């Protein structure tokens, strides 16, 4: 892959900043949860939707499109804001996020016409669905690839590990799992609830190709996503080290922002930081 130019990197950063602003605005207006999780995945989503994924926002049903599954459904606001920014639907529709008689909820609802490929929200489903889709693509000799994003806490769910075994068994080199490794889950640090380490070694021992990256560094994210499969005839795991609440200093690595929404003052401070 050609190296990203500074101009390109700045472009991705700018888009991510715009999406974070949108997320902040919606969370503030609707007093909703999950701002920390949404900021944690924003850069990953930008790299996926503005670079890695083979998609056509105006032709959402085209047959061999790449599939993206947000398995950690609670980052749905980040997904919706990214889809809108990428042109899947008007940014105006974000006014209908988490409001009565609205269009979007805190977790994704299946609607391929808007780019939402799978409903999620209960953790540990997305990867199995992704394995099924990748398997079908292989059978049909389709060029389709399937990208699944899970949270680190989500990996507590045993169903993931059934899928991880399966994907390797079936040689799904068209499947990419991205772990949003922000080191937190609802009630504490991932390392203190159920430690995942050594995580990369776990994937390796299950037969996966693995790469660890900084999930907020565009050259690293795009570099990884552009070099899949990492291993011949094997699925790929991108372990993305991220920061929950990334982008707003007082939200970063502070787990109360899993569910808290900003006060008027906090909103103003966050807005100022993001507008820099």
């Amino acid at each position, binding site marked *: 892959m050609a190296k990203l130019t500074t101009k390109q990197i700045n472009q991705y950063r700018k888009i991510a900043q715009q999406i974070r602003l949108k997320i902040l605005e919606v969370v503030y207006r609707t007093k909703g949860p999950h701002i920390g999780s949404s900021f944690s995945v924003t850069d990953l989503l930008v790299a996926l939707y503005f670079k890695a994924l083979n998609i056509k926002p105006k032709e959402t049903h085209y047959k061999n499109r790449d599939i993206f599954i947000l398995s950690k459904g609670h980052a749905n606001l980040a997904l919706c804001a990214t889809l809108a920014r990428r042109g899947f639907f008007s940014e105006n529709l974000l006014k209908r996020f988490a409001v*009565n008689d*609205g269009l*979007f*909820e805190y977790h994704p609802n299946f609607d391929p016409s808007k780019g939402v490929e799978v409903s999620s929200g209960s953790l540990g489903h997305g990867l199995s669905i992704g394995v099924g889709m990748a398997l079908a693509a292989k059978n049909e000799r389709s060029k389709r690839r399937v990208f699944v994003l899970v949270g680190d806490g989500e990996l507590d769910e*045993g169903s993931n590990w059934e899928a991880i075994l399966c994907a390797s068994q079936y040689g799904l080199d068209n499947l990419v799992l991205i772990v949003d490794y922000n080191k937190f889950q*609802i*009630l504490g640090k991932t390392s203190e609830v159920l430690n995942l380490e050594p995580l990369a070694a776990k994937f390796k021992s299950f037969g996966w190709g693995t790469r660890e990256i900084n999930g907020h560094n565009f050259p690293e994210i795009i570099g990884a996503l552009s070099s899949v499969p990492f291993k011949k005839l094997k699925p790929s795991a991108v372990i993305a080290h991220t920061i929950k609440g990334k982008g707003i200093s007082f939200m970063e690595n502070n787990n109360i922002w899993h*569910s808290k929404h900003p006060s008027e003052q906090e909103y103003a401070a966050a807005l100022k930081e993001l507008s820099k």
Partner: protein
Amino acid sequence: MRATFIKILQKLAVRHKDIMLMTADTGYLFNDFKKAHPKQFLNAGIAEANMIGMAAGLSLTGKNVYCYSMSTFLIVRALEQIRIDLCYHNLSVKLLGAGGGLSYGLEGLTHQALEDIALLRALPNMTIFCPGDPVELEAVAKESIDHKGPLYIRFPKDNQPQIHRTSLKIKIGQGIFITKGGRVAIIATGSMLYQAKLAADSLFKKGIKTTLISMPTIKPLDIGLIKRIIKYKAIIVVEEHNIIGGLGDAVGSALMDFGYKGVFKKIGLPDKYVVRVGDYQHLCQKYGLTSEAIMNQILKLNKKYGSGFDKIK
């Protein structure tokens, strides 16, 4: 309500050293319990099936286990562990389910518990209790300690108003008459108790007297109570659950056993998955689970089956 339950449990855990409280990484209500009883608390991670299996192991070796999570993850995700590890072994593990029904409104369908009661009703040995007010909650919290067999407690949305007198003794397995009179009986459970109470009050103001029954225990059903109400001209069951398999069906089939000849109506959630975005109040309104909707249903029945059949005499 959940917080009150955990507070009561915390007090009980002082004398009952065998109590173990587990959560599947949900609920911001365990800090005090954890501080008071660090060895009696465990965060099992986001792994409900494993939590229930572990609970079975702990129970088989003498612990009195309480497992907490959001209702649908706790029950639906871990259903086979509940069926085999808890029910088949008939272990006295308590399942504390947060957010019964539509409570988690804007979180969407994945977080709403709409079929939990139906699934558990079909499991032998299971007891299902849906507290509808703080008095019912306190009763089940205290009785749960010595309850034999698996027990599911389905918490409604927080802060349900008090309906019963504080001194009222409530037992698992017993329905409670709140008002008596007229020829229409309304049976409500959990979150719908307060709405049914408001509906009954409004009907009374319109000159229509009703009998209101709270039925916190859905399984085993209070059959004795059902037998006593077959004389009513109409029986209406209200619950925040799929219309299939909940309290309505339980009451309906018991009524059939007794040869009930009157009018029977279930009020609950439709057997449909639709994307309906809204907060808890909004969804209750859309699905007709409000005092007003309940009242209108009764007025409609009144009109259909002859006026005066439930007028105050």
